[in-house]
């Protein structure tokens, strides 16, 4: 019994210490945002501001076009996710259910496309978008982000559809649905959590992009995304770390929220009652 208590104490100490160290940078981001810029130049540093300035978020929203950047990021992400989801729901379903000639090689190609470096694709895409006069437009990054998202979502959805027993759509077809009807009336409603998780994942991919936004949007200030905006703040000749940190928190917040949601949703499966 005593050994067990020692083991538990060690375990807790290990967990707390590890979490503290690994999460500290995020904590420090918050502390920095809430501190007066002058306080940041004091040594030794204080690990919690004496008077947290909670108003900092309202202040930078007023002073900087943060909301515009966030809006652009959201538009780009929603656009890219919408295109990608339509395409990958259909393709993922087909890859999961039909054994087609060529289907497997397409799957493998998509898997490989997941590994393509953005710095490779960005050059020809730049040329293509220039011809189409899309440089500076949000459409450029919507399409570019689709190249990032489609490979991921197609494979995630194929995997998700694979977990749904085929008998469900077979039953629906015997009940009088067309194959497409079976997909729309039975498979898609059951897949709602999977679809949501996949879409959120796509959102994260788009939201996190910097390379494409930097390349296509740098000269179009009105279309800057959040990541691009943040880096320009960092590039200013006197970095106001307090403001940058506050802006960074606003940019990271949606992804943090998605992370908390994804954790929960990916686990529970709605199909649990369909079998056995």
């Amino acid at each position, binding site marked *: 019994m005593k050994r067990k208590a020692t083991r538990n104490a060690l375990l807790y100490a290990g967990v707390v210490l590890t979490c503290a160290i690994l999460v500290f940078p995020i904590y420090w981001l918050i502390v920095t945002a809430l501190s007066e810029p002058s306080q940041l130049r004091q040594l030794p540093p204080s690990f919690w501001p004496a008077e947290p300035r909670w108003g900092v978020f309202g202040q930078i929203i007023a002073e900087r076009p943060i909301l515009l950047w966030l809006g652009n990021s959201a538009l780009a992400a929603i656009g890219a996710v919408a295109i990608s989801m339509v395409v990958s729901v259909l393709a993922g379903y087909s890859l999961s259910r039909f054994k087609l000639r060529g289907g497997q090689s397409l799957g493998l190609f998509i898997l490989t496309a997941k590994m393509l470096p953005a710095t490779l694709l960005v050059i020809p895409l730049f040329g293509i978008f220039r011809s189409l006069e899309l440089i500076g437009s949000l459409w450029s990054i919507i399409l570019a982000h689709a190249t990032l998202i489609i490979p991921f979502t197609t494979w995630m959805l194929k995997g998700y559809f694979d977990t749904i*027993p085929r*008998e*469900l759509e*077979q*039953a*629906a*077809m*015997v*009940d*009088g*649905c*067309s194959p497409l*009807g079976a997909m729309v009336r*039975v498979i898609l*409603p*059951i897949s709602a959590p999977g679809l949501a998780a996949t879409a959120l994942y796509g959102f994260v991919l788009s939201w996190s992009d910097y390379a494409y936004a930097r390349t296509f949007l740098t000269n179009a200030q009105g279309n800057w995304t959040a990541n691009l905006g943040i880096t320009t703040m960092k590039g200013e000749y006197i970095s106001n770390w307090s403001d940058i940190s506050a802006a960074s928190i606003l940019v990271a917040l949606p992804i943090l929220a998605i992370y908390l949601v994804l954790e929960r949703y990916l686990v529970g499966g*709605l*199909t*649990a*009652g*369909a*079998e*056995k």
Partner: protein
Amino acid sequence: MAGIRIDSITKSYGGLTVLKGFSLDIADGEFVVLVGPSGCGKSTMLKILAGLEEASSGTISIGDRNVTDLAPGDRDIAMVFQNYALYPHLSVRRNMGFGLKMRGTDAGEIDRRVADAAKILGIDHLLDRRPRALSGGQRQRVALGRAIVREPQAFLMDEPLSNLDAKLRVHTRAEISALHKRLRVTTIYVTHDQTEAMTMADRIVIMKDGVIQQIASPEVMFRKPANLFVAGFIGSPGMNFLKAKAQASGGGATAKLFGHDVVLPVANADALAGKEIVVGLRPEHIAAGPGQISFTVTPRLIESLGSEQYVYVDLPEEHRRETVSAGEDEARRSALIARLINPEPGPPGETLTLSFDPARLHVFDAASGEAIR
């Protein structure tokens, strides 16, 4: 309701042929069971019948309609799946009414028919639950209910009992039989369990490697198996097989079994002389104590089930077959099992006299496996 005609259906995946010319006529209202070991093609046949898979060749008619390339929904059949395949996002009521709704039946009619079916199956109190809130047995009933609500030309059932525990399985088996007597809908039932086949079927179709081995009523299937495979598959424990050599003797044929010259129950004795044969003897046709042909053994093992005993005996070397067919228990090659009803409790390890009636023997050609009568 209608009869079903299946004509020379074949199915191959690339080079692999899983159905080799399957033909079967099913009468209106008949209960036909397709039975066989896994991989015999029985489930594939059912899926082709349902229109869920495409046949490589052959035709299927339901009633007088050729449905070979008709959509599953246009065949007017209902199917019960092994995993029930209940729609998890719909209530029991909407699960059962889904097929009718797809066919444009009006809501009042759907409600009435769902309520009727639910009453028959005793699930009226579950109608507003989701499938995941039901027990396995309840889900099974809902799956049945979803099929009967449709009032289709035929029911197709794919191992519907295999996910139930043993006790519930026996109970539901009887219920499905009763349901069939009541509704008289043509039913094709797929299972790997010979007990289900024997207890439920009007006719059994026994399959192996995509080929029909025998089509017969349970009674005939048991008494006159067409070949070694059928003989070994039907009955529990399975038939004992003894290798022997047939000899002609005075108009009849005999074989030496346990040291006795035993007259074989065959009509055409002449063709048999000198042939390698396999003699089959069902465990329940072996009796304790002396009889027409008696032999003494030392049991290797006695399993007592109370009202009956399984006595395991080492088969003499000369009766052992060289190989057993695929799917058969290798241990059966060297063992003889006797099933004794209401036996005298005797201490194990002692010798025991067993006997059998030679008229009960089955004779098979050792090379082809076909029955010889």
